[in-house]
């Protein structure tokens, strides 16, 4: 059994929490005592049924305001797959939360209220999905019960979405599904109310969509997180480099280069606790041993010698500003790229995106939730790939050393 992490994006009233509640309810993922707590909470739909949205509105303030503020993670599994849902807020002031939820998602559900159609928020959500290059997109047209399950209304929205969004943005594999989260149509079961719809239910699609994109073996990398040195009598010379393989596959006897120093050695041994595999694939947390004694520490990255990344101190990147304090191009920030942290400056602003209209603006002030293209200058060189070629090694965050807050997300686009 494998795992799919997906994101749900929609605006405040699109019924996003209800959709998630419906998925959990119809897959028997809600337990009796949780249902009982729901009954106790006194919030009901107009027809007296349980308000499934309460299941995902986790924090008190949110329950009071009836909106989702932060990313809430929900878990369920079927016989076919384990799922992790990142339920993210839809309102513009929570763009950073959506970016957070989207960062680990393998699929995005974009919700549209059938009565409203494609609106500014739909464009913004789709832009973020495109920016983060989430591999699969499902456009769920919700509240079909409110328009008598009318095929024409659905088709018009699909046409609008294509014209206004998917023809302009780079989106991968877009599916369109008409649903009613409230009534359960096409969520876990194919709806009898919409015989005109020939596709699968939402759950069917989630269970069968391909999760492993072709693992790119051209970018074999492992950042060093920790050096294992027991320094006991019997393990006096033991020196293992512990980390998680970001991408690609290391094999025994591979020629390996340490960056940024550039020293090269041969991969001598791979350890996975008590196992000694011949190869270490993307996603595995392993300990690697090299034939030669080289000075390697946390922050260095091991790569296949034949597959060198870019090593540079000037990087062009897409940036999403996530702090209430605006971006300051004169300030020295910290950049965290894998296990490496070094100082950095935003040395140039190339443009800012007007996300709702997808226009590039020549403005330099980046406030909370602003997104655009910048040039970053780092104090020490980073060994990176471009996000569009190898996501795992093409991303970073900026930290403000005055507040220690994570203030920006970066996706590397070019060597500047």
């Amino acid at each position, binding site marked *: 059994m494998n795992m799919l992490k997906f994101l749900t994006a929609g605006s405040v009233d699109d019924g996003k929490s209800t959709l998630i509640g419906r998925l959990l309810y119809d897959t028997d993922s809600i337990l009796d005592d949780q249902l009982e707590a729901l009954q106790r909470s006194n919030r009901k739909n107009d027809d007296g049924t349980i308000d499934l949205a309460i299941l995902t509105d986790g924090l008190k303030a949110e329950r009071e305001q009836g909106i989702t503020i932060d990313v809430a993670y929900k878990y369920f599994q079927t016989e076919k797959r384990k799922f992790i849902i990142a339920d993210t807020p839809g309102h513009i002031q929570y763009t950073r939360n959506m970016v957070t939820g989207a960062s680990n998602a393998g699929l995005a559900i974009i919700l549209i209220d059938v009565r409203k159609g494609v609106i500014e928020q739909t464009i913004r959500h789709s832009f973020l999905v495109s920016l983060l290059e989430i591999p699969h997109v499902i456009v769920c047209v919700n509240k079909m019960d409110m328009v008598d399950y009318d095929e024409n209304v659905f088709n018009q929205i699909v046409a609008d979405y294509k014209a206004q969004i998917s023809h302009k943005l780079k989106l991968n594999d877009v599916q369109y599904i008409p649903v009613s989260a409230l009534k359960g149509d096409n969520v876990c079961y194919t709806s009898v109310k919409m015989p005109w719809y020939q596709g699968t239910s939402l759950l069917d699609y989630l269970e069968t969509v391909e999760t492993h994109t072709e693992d790119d073996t051209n970018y074999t990398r492992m950042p060093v997180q920790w050096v294992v040195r027991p320094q006991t009598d019997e393990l006096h010379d033991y020196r293992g480099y512990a980390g998680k393989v970001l991408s690609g596959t290391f094999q025994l006897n591979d020629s390996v280069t340490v960056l940024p120093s550039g020293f090269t050695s041969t991969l001598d041994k791979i350890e996975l606790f008590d196992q000694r*595999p011949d190869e270490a694939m993307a996603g595995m947390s392993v300990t690697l041993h090299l034939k030669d004694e080289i000075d390697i520490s946390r922050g260095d990255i091991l790569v296949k010698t034949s597959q060198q990344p870019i090593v540079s101190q000037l990087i062009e990147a897409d940036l999403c500003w996530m702090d209430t304090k605006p971006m300051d191009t004169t300030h020295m920030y910290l950049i965290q790229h894998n296990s490496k942290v070094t100082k950095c400056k935003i040395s140039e602003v190339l443009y800012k995106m007007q996300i709702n209209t997808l226009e590039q603006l020549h403005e330099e002030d980046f406030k909370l939730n602003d997104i655009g293209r910048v040039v970053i200058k780092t104090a020490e060189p980073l060994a990176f790939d471009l996000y569009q070629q190898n996501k795992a090694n093409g991303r970073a965050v900026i930290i403000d050393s005055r507040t220690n807050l994570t203030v920006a997300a970066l996706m590397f686009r070019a060597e500047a």
Partner: protein
Amino acid sequence: MSRKPDYLDELEAEAIHILREVAGQFEKPALLFSGGKDSITLVRLAEKAFRPGKFPFPLVHIDTGHNFEETIQYRDDMIARIGEKLIVGYVQDDIDAGRVVEQKGKNASRNQLQTVTLLNTIAKHEFDACIGGARRDEEKARAKERVFSVRDEFGQWNPKSQRPELWDLYNGKIHKGENVRVFPISNWTELDVWNYIRRENIPLPSIYFAHEREVITRNGQLMAASPFLNMDDEDVVQTKNVRFRTVGDMSCTAAVESYAFEIDDIINEISASNISERGARLDDKVSEAAMEDRKKGGYF
């Protein structure tokens, strides 16, 4: 290595990555060990992350004094086996020093008092990161918590000003006096933990498996009869076949009737069960927002 990686491998690799980030980013981390299956799983993951080296942190146990003796026995045996350092913070010490006052009445429990002992232990040893076994599927408030969750100098969690946490980049930068709670198994469910324990053949305290025990029924739940439970004439002691789904203070951890003697039985039982794990804890029943309030106050 011909076995295709499955979701347990993914969850394991993610947890090991998080543990190694703690080792790399903090000066004085600690692993909070309760004796429950989640923290036992963390110990196994730490072995996978750092062996053949030593753990770069001690284990810390907050001892309420109201323990199941099987848990303490398990703890001491485990420490002897893995050869790592254990620090124990005693709630009794804080009661004796007058820093906390024992609850009164029928439902008295030391569960809430342990927050004070935990915060004192963190302050005394100047821990800057505490690794815990909390999972997001346990409770709604936990569903929104970060893997690296910053606590202010009063030990409080502020759910409204959490740092964005993107990809697998964990920001552990803090000011002096603050500390970070780290949850490596955030993305695991109860069933995932049990499947992992089975796969890895990890021994558990015997109270997780069905056994005969004297219990009383209180608020519709089975509580172990013990000197720590305030009982009166209305309480009828019965002997039943039970097991515990979580391991906490004896005065607030309810048992379930069970004939699950083996781990396979337990996995079957959970898969078929309609009661969530925290549903067997009286401390969460007080109000719907019980967990959120306790977390803000510095609870695990």
